[in-house]
């Protein structure tokens, strides 16, 4: 696995998922899962689910605002897990009436607002 997808020691086995799912933006993470059938999401879900507790407790031991790139990737993978968990655990079948995500925009940036959850990591205290 190239350094571009490296995860912290102990989590190397999850590196094959980093290219597709270690995504910083909430919006891009969401778009990566909408429109994909559950069968395509299942391998990622199945690999991460048994490791989630370990990942969270490992990352909770670190300073959230001083994570290096491999740790950030691991955090983004865990956040992506929360995206794919929706269709796997709850949506037995997608709601055909649901509004098309393609018609939804991210609100414009504003000095006092953040547009992505992970922006919190890079704000001044």
């Amino acid at each position, binding site marked *: 696995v190239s350094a571009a997808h490296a995860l912290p020691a102990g989590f190397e086995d999850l590196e094959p998922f980093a290219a597709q799912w270690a995504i910083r933006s*909430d919006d891009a*993470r*969401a778009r990566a899962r909408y429109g994909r059938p559950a069968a395509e999401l299942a391998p990622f879900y199945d690999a991460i*689910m048994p490791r*989630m*507790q370990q990942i*969270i*407790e490992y*990352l*909770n031991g*670190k300073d*959230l605002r001083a994570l290096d790139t491999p740790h950030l990737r691991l*955090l983004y993978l*865990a*956040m992506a*897990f*929360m*995206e794919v*968990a*929706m269709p796997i*655990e*709850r*949506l*037995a*079948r*997608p*709601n055909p*009436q*649901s*509004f098309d*995500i393609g*018609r*939804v*925009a*991210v*609100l414009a940036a504003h000095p006092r*607002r953040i547009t992505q*959850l*992970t922006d*919190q*990591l890079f*704000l001044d205290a």
Partner: protein
Amino acid sequence: MSAQVRANWKVVVDAFQEAFHVSFVHRNTVCDAFTSKTNPYSHIAWVQLERMHRSASVYGVPELAREIHPAESLAFVYGTAFTQGAHAEAANLPGVNPAGIEDWAFDINVVFPTFFLDPSNHFYFTIQYWPSSVNQTRLDFRFYMPRAQNAGQLISQAYTNSIMRDAGLEDLGTIEDTQRMLESGALEHMILGDQEIALLHNYAVVDRMVRGEL
């Protein structure tokens, strides 16, 4: 997030001020957190009508009274999430859950005509509606969450973000159908039920304003 929908602003607002749609529109997503044997159609827990504004509290199933999904369970343990309901500290904040509903999920506070502020479990969301013509409305959804202190809290926020978006897309999915149905003229009247008292209130306020009585 922001979306432009082809519907009159009142039709858009209607979709977010009653709760009984949950067991139909959200049957595949958040239904289990808001419906139970004691309240199978998520009947509104409390409502208060002001001169123009209005508030309501939405029923939520207690955390221990239903099956919690695996990802949801992680969100509850390491942070807090939208579907956590009454056991959240937020239910006890001043001005939140004003009627002290035991099985509380969130409040809907409507600032007439086009601003909603809905406090929930450790976060609140607002919806700002921008009517731009008789049948065009833009909705801006904003989620406000406390700054995460650790990774677990941030990952839990991602769960809330995801489930709120799914439910929001489902809500948006019904609005243009309603507008098309109304424009077709097939129905001369639309009957609103008791669960839609907030909608009735909105139409009454608008009607009185148009007549110059308010």
